[in-house]
């Protein structure tokens, strides 16, 4: 590609893809299927707040969210270019994808800090 930012975004894509592959199916199963159906018990609100009181837990969650989003940004960008033949919108699509991932990461950081 000859674009100097490409290896940087590729690294984020790759790290996010690996992290998402390893943990997201289990997270999805526990939090959004097994717990709502009553198969498994997850912490109540006080329990979550206690868990997220540790800086390490907050940082881990933020890293997971950020890398997963940058994984999406990179992969979805090329899906739009190639899948929908939108090569002429190169700049716009890149801005929306990476900009969106950055914005949501910042919101996540703010919300995690706000937990007090």
């Amino acid at each position, binding site marked *: 590609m000859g674009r100097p930012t490409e290896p940087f975004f590729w690294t984020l894509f790759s790290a996010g893809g690996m992290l998402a592959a390893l943990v997201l199916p289990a997270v999805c199963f526990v939090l959004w299927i097994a717990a709502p159906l009553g198969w498994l018990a997850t912490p109540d*609100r006080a329990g979550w707040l206690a868990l997220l009181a540790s800086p390490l837990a907050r940082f881990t969650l933020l890293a997971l969210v950020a890398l997963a989003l940058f994984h999406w940004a990179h992969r979805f960008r090329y899906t739009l270019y190639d*899948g929908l033949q939108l090569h002429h919108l190169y700049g716009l699509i890149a801005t929306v994808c990476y900009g969106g991932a950055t914005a949501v990461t910042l919101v996540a950081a703010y919300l995690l800090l706000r937990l007090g």
Partner: protein
Amino acid sequence: MNRRRFHPRWFRRRTPIFWWLEKGVYVHFIVRELTSLGVAYAALLLVVQVGVLGAGDAAHARFTALLASPWAVAWHALLLATLVFHTLTWLHLAPKALVVKLGGRRVPNAAILAGHYLGWLAASALVVLVLVRS
């Protein structure tokens, strides 16, 4: 200047938008790429849950009830299928991307793949350990 007017037209065959429906492997490729939407959705939902957690007891109770509705569970079952497809396709790329040598010999692809599956198992166990209360 007439240069623009008389410039020869580029000969390019236009690729139709749904070119990827022509073959099974193309569909597999596009579905694999679209699993990134599931990954982004999961990240967004985690962010929303952090927001709800900070918004107080009432908001948290309401959101927990929303997650327990049959539609939400069905939707997230679809999400789980998407995420598992992401994991399988991602792990199966690993032997193609990694050449590991041990004592001058190349570690066979099956061993690399098995290592990644073990990693998936360990990571999933860790997630359950952190998130589940008895």
